[in-house]
């Protein structure tokens, strides 16, 4: 049944999202064709003002385009979850012979798939626009630097710890964030009126609450408390920093709580008007 739910979830959200993401790739392709034509014709004329303005305009639209696509995917999926659970469509969703757990998992999987596709599409569009023989070494160098910065922040440098750090990011991003979004939608349904507004308020309310907890955890677990944050960052590789492991456990626990909270609302507190 889960497979079937996932199939229909995919069908219902993917047409629009594929069009939007496809448009991003087309825009990147236009940019690449544009600058290739430009460099082949005006290679020596680097002071072309019109081209400079056009390029700047193009890059601004491109950057905002990427942000809009990422934001739109999240909002679109959140609205889809809200509609299929708690609007008229909920009458069909909740009369299917499937359990609330299966319903939730189908939404979570589709959210994960589109989150990964988001990253792939954005990476592909950047590759279309920028990757060529001249830029490749700089791109590789940039990635190395980014990885180094990320791992230095954790205060750990060996491969195992880097994997653990990456895993913690995945837990925060996939389990905590997805769980939070769905839980906020479910919590919004418990409002008597303005359920969508209730979901938005729940979302930001939980985020604030989680940030407070996060801050408390950091202050307790960092060696020496808040004051050592900068020291650890600058000290770099050999300073052991367990705070992110504890934070990860907290994100995991919160993500699990969000899942079971959502399941509880769907099975014990469902009240479709």
């Amino acid at each position: 049944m889960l497979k079937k739910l996932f199939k229909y979830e995919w069908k219902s959200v993917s047409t629009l999202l594929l069009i939007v993401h496809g448009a991003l790739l087309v825009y990147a392709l236009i940019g690449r064709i544009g600058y290739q034509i430009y460099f082949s014709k005006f290679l020596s004329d680097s002071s072309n003002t019109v081209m400079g303005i056009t390029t700047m305009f193009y890059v601004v639209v491109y950057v905002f385009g990427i942000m809009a696509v990422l934001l739109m995917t999240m909002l679109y999926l959140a609205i889809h979850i809200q509609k299929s659970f708690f609007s008229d469509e909920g009458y069909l969703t909740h009369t299917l012979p499937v359990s609330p757990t299966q319903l939730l998992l189908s939404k979570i999987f589709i959210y994960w798939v589109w989150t990964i596709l988001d990253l792939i599409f954005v990476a592909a569009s950047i590759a279309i626009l920028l990757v060529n023989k001249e830029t490749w070494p700089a791109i590789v160098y940039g990635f190395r630097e980014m990885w180094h910065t990320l791992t230095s922040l954790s205060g750990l440098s060996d491969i195992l710890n880097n994997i653990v750090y990456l895993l913690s990011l995945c837990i925060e991003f996939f389990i905590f964030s997805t769980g939070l979004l769905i839980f906020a939608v479910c919590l919004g349904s418990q409002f008597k009126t303005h359920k969508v507004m209730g979901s938005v308020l729940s979302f930001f309310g939980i985020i604030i609450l989680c940030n407070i907890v996060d801050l408390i955890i950091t202050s307790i677990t960092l060696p020496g408390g808040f004051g050592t944050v900068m020291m650890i960052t600058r000290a770099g590789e050999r300073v052991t920093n367990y705070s992110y492991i504890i934070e990860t456990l907290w994100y995991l626990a919160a993500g699990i709580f969000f899942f079971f909270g959502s399941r509880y609302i769907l099975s014990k507190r469902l009240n479709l008007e």
Partner: protein
Amino acid sequence: MSTILDCRGLTKRYGNKLALDHIDLSLDRGKIIGLLGPNGSGKTTLIKLLNGLLVPTEGEIFVDGKAPGVETKRIVSYLPERTYLNRWMRVSDLISYFCDFYEDFDRSRAYDMLQKLNINPNDRLSTMSKGTKEKVQLILVMSRRASLYCLDEPIAGVDPAARDYILSTIINNYDENATILISTHLISDVENILDDVIFIQNGHIRMQDSVDNIRMAKGVSVDSLFREVFKC
């Protein structure tokens, strides 16, 4: 005769408003039952509770001996009073959808009914009129071989000619062990197909009797009795 629906002290509150008040009710298999009452009497609330769309405030409800859940949803076919299907889907997609999720769905029966009502399976729901959408919903619901059909206002939005077809569809498409619970205001239209009626008012069951008993004992039609009982 075994019971398909059993309510014990069933109560539902919306905030301070009492929608159902300690209802005790049993429905037998193999009957077409009219759930009749004025607006706000609790008909839709009762149907939603048995479909698991609402959670009771107090009391219990059992469908085929089980609390509403995955098992009961396999045997209950529900037609809500609103359009609940995905607008982007074609009728043929919806038939596949129902086929995928309900083991008791009869695809050929659905296509047969679509043909008789002149509905193109390739049409999208978003291009259809409200009445046609309601017909599609009814076709999907009645194409299942369910044990209990819950039809909430099944003929309210369709023209009189289609009503006759829908009512004959209801009669012809259920087997003798199945039960149909119809909630409607259009009593005169459905009266002839009903075996039993339940009158509900302000969250209380006012009366539960067979149509034959009402006609013989009281000498009036169900429609006349309804007007008398619920006179404003």
